[in-house]
């Protein structure tokens, strides 16, 4: 099998498993609904205050669901004792990484679309004009989160206290992505054109490329044993 087909095989397997069992997805959907309740309860019903913190709260929702989703990347294999089977796959191990990254991106896209929809309904915001720009920001930001998240998930899968360690490692590294996405989302929701946030988009693109290259190059080292 070629490199690309091996990566695709891993991604297809994960998507199929998730589609049939809905183990992670069901919990994530419910979790994002609960997040909205929590935000509403803690922030109160004051509309002006909500509008001011909305971009940050939206990304908080994305990040919290991403932490849950990405942290489980390699647990399917652990829980069902398929870890060794995955490791025995021939050829360059980074194909496994790319496959896992792809299935994570699919999962996160589904959850984020849902969170965004719930935000529009419950907080009554109008995002139609900002939607094309928002799509680019969310895509770049999600890619950045998922690249490092998938790498760190492999790292923490075999470590003590992995549930705590995963966010502790991921969040500081992701600060540039968070700052860029929140600031860009804020500007877009205020009706500014995409050109006004070009510097943030460039930073996100640079971060995505750096994270992807490092992850592909170092993934082999993590799976060694």
């Amino acid at each position, binding site marked *: 099998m070629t490199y690309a087909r091996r990566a695709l095989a891993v991604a297809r397997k994960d998507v199929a498993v998730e589609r049939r069992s809905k183990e992670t997805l069901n919990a994530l959907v419910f979790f994002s609904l609960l997040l909205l309740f929590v935000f509403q309860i803690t922030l109160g019903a004051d509309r002006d205050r909500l509008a001011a913190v909305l971009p940050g709260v939206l990304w908080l929702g994305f990040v919290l669901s991403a932490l849950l989703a990405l942290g489980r990347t390699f647990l399917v294999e652990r829980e069902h004792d398929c870890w060794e089977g995955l490791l025995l796959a021939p050829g360059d191990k980074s194909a496994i990484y790319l496959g896992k990254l792809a299935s994570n991106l699919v999962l996160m896209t589904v959850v984020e679309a849902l969170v965004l929809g719930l935000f529009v309904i419950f907080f009554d915001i109008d995002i139609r004009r900002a939607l094309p720009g928002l799509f680019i920001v969310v895509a770049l930001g999600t890619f950045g989160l998922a690249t490092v998240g998938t790498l760190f998930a492999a*790292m923490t899968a075999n470590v*003590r206290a992995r549930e705590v360690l995963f966010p502790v*490692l991921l969040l*500081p590294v992701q600060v540039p992505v968070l*700052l860029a996405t929140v600031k860009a989302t804020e500007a877009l929701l205020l009706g500014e054109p995409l050109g006004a946030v070009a510097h*943030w988009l460039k930073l996100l693109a640079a971060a995505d490329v750096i*994270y992807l290259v490092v992850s592909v190059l170092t993934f082999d080292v993590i799976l060694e044993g």
Partner: protein
Amino acid sequence: MIRTLGWLSVVALVAGLVMSFGVAPREVTQGTVQRIMYVHVPLVISSYVAFIVLAVASFVYLLRRDPRADRVAHASGEIGVMFIGLGIATGSIWGKPTWGTWWTWDARLTSVAILFVMYVGYLLLRGSIDDPERAARFAAVLGIVAALDIPLVHFSVYWWRTLHQPPSLMKPGGFTGSTAILWPLLVNLVAFVILYAYLTARRARLLRAEAEAVA
């Protein structure tokens, strides 16, 4: 060799201390409290030196699988976290009387705080893996990711307005302040880098002794 480094750092630190109180002038508006700069700036800069050494040592470890490189990275991480923590503490003590606040989310304070938590995470990762070979591999990957993240962190927080006084040493056009300030600062900087090298060498030797005791 290590002992010489230790004595050298003692001499340099004493010289730096004498210069920051004897040679450096009393700052006109801030008063004596400004002299904390002669400790604060060298601490932060030498913590960056530590993190660069950590990244290079991590890279060397992944290439050669030499446990010595891993011990240097581990020791540098610990000393770097200690230095950057002390840098944040001295900055707070300096900030209270001059800015009127212990802490503010100014650009450079934020980036330093992010680096601090990032490298605390690095030490936490090392601490939660029992197998030393695996700990070395994982930590090396994290060390490289963290180092590549430093410019991104700096750029992203740079686009905030900053309260911090602009850098006085490394800026376009070179240093423009008085040499009475520059020399004490440089002597202290050299002293703290030597201190970092000494503590790292000590810690690396201790790590080797620990590894040999287990083996």
